[in-house]
């Protein structure tokens, strides 16, 4: 009894934590380049709706994920144009981008409300998934769940172990100094925002293709903002973000599993304090 309860909590945490982690990585890449993106919510919604409509029309969820990722990346370029080229206020631009994403995704998805899809299939890892308890809790997910931790490691490796990542962080810390060192801050920031958009798009696509398997207006329900909090919680570090996303995912899954509503606000409160 307790065992199966724990397993549903753990698998729920992994499921709900996955889009959070993709979104957190997206925000982290942007913030490392010195750009706070409050519009991640809109980017995720665009990824969700484009991923979903593509899947409905082609019947191929893999194509849906690709389209969602691309849509997120392109949509984030609008934000890039505002804050990089036009040097607009980041917070206001981000919120405007969020509203734009909410509206545009509602318009795109309007005729797809109620459509059902197969969605991303669970891939059972041979042998491992048959282990009692653990198999169900850890080896029975869709492809995006398996890929999320490697993605986090990849983001960490790119940011901290490559020349490009070093330049990006330099731009984030001090664009003028980076410029003097021969970097092109604008180009690096655009690249960072495009990658962030792709990750945000994947986060949204995972929501609509693997978790909900349907489309609803504003289905991200604030996960974009939670990602902003998670980035701070994880101190702008992709690997620490894994733990943070799991914790928040666990809170969401606990909320779904238990009627004890008090449990919900606690992790959120603690983030507030931990950020300081």
């Amino acid at each position, binding site marked *: 009894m307790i065992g199966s309860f724990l397993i549903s909590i753990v698998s729920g945490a992994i499921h709900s934590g996955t889009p959070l982690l993709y979104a957190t990585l997206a925000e982290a890449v942007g913030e490392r380049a010195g750009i706070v993106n409050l519009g991640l919510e809109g980017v995720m919604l665009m990824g969700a709706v484009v991923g979903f409509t593509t899947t409905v029309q082609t019947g191929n969820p893999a194509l849906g994920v690709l389209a969602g990722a691309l849509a997120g990346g392109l949509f984030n370029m609008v934000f890039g144009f*505002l804050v990089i080229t036009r040097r607009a206020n980041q917070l206001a631009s981000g919120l405007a981008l969020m509203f*734009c994403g909410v509206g545009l995704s509602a318009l795109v998805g*309007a005729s797809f409300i109620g459509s059902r899809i197969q969605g991303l299939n669970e891939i059972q890892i041979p042998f491992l998934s048959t282990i009692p308890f653990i198999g169900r809790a850890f080896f029975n997910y869709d492809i995006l769940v398996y890929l999320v931790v490697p993605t986090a490691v990849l983001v960490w490796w790119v940011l901290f172990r490559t020349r490009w990542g070093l330049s990006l962080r330099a731009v984030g810390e001090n664009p003028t100094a980076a410029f003097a060192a021969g970097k092109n801050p604008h180009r690096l920031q655009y690249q960072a925002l495009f990658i962030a958009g792709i990750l945000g798009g994947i986060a949204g696509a995972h929501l609509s293709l693997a978790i909900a398997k349907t489309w609803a207006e504003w289905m991200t329900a604030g996960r974009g903002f939670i990602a902003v909090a998670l980035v701070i919680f994880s101190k702008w570090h992709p690997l620490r973000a894994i733990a943070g996303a799991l914790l928040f995912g666990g809170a969401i899954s606990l909320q779904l599993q238990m009627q004890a*509503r008090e449990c919900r606000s606690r992790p959120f409160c603690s983030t507030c304090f931990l*950020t300081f």
Partner: protein
Amino acid sequence: MGRVDKATAGIDLFRNKRVASLIRFSGLFGLALSVFAVVLLVFGKNPIRAYVDIFSATLGSSYGFSEVLVKMIPLALTALAVAIPSRIWLINVGGEGQLFIGALFATWGAINFTNLPAWLFLPWISILGFLGGGLWASISGFLRAKGWASETISTLLMNYVAILLVNFFVFGPWKDPESANYPQSIPFPDAAILPSFFGSRVHLGAVLAIVGLILFHFVLSRTRWGLEMRAIGINQEAARRNGISTYRYIIILMFIGGGMAGLAGMGEVSAIHGQLRPSLSPGLGYTGFLISWMAMGNPLGIVAAAFLISVITAGGDILQMTHRIPGAAVHILMALVLFVVLARRVGKVRGK
């Protein structure tokens, strides 16, 4: 002679800063309108009919106009919540959470003191709403004044805590036993519902918003506090060395700002919904932030920007009803207006 006068008057008119900015803004608004028209065309809708319907239904009828005013009330208040702390460069992104806590406090007062007469009830829940939003914001203010946390981040994060708190109460202890499935509090007693004017839904919150805007303008331009606030805004260190307590100003301005958002929440929960619901606010706090930003914290500008945004959001309801376009689609138009303003205002704010 007369003709020359007219011509120079025209030029003077154009040189007048306000008129020039009005003309420029109309141009930007036109640009946003045409981009949104293209978006509608792409989705196979008729943009001209959509616009005609939006504007005739919001500005063309007294009912539609009153609905625009109804939407303006919380937006003006949440914009004030941002504008007041922004005078000393505090960035309050927490209007949403402060609004929810204001509504929460007001609900507590309304459902626990059901016997109060109306003349006592209204100030009572107003004070509670103000206090709720204010205290919530002053937590961030305190952390900022102590230098422990950036108010931008803490206000943003506390939005979530606030919404979850409200959810906790409406799903848990305050859940209306009569409603089986909907998470909502019991309805407010009649005496606790803000009175409306002229048979429309425009409620007493409008008066609060107007008083707030006038007071804001008056305090800023006519009082010692306004002067000190400006001093802090221009150079915090210099102000501090001149004996102005920046510490106190940070907390107090956050408190008043949050209180404004709390009043918005009180107005929404009492006059519009009549009971506490988690769907209380479709991002009113964030919209207020954008309005204050568009208006650059100017009280008249807040009224103008709130009016514009309210026309657009009220138009969303019309589109949904008559054109089978999702109501949220007007968020695109709102965002486009902001995009053009954001992209246009280069170097003016940053000075770079």
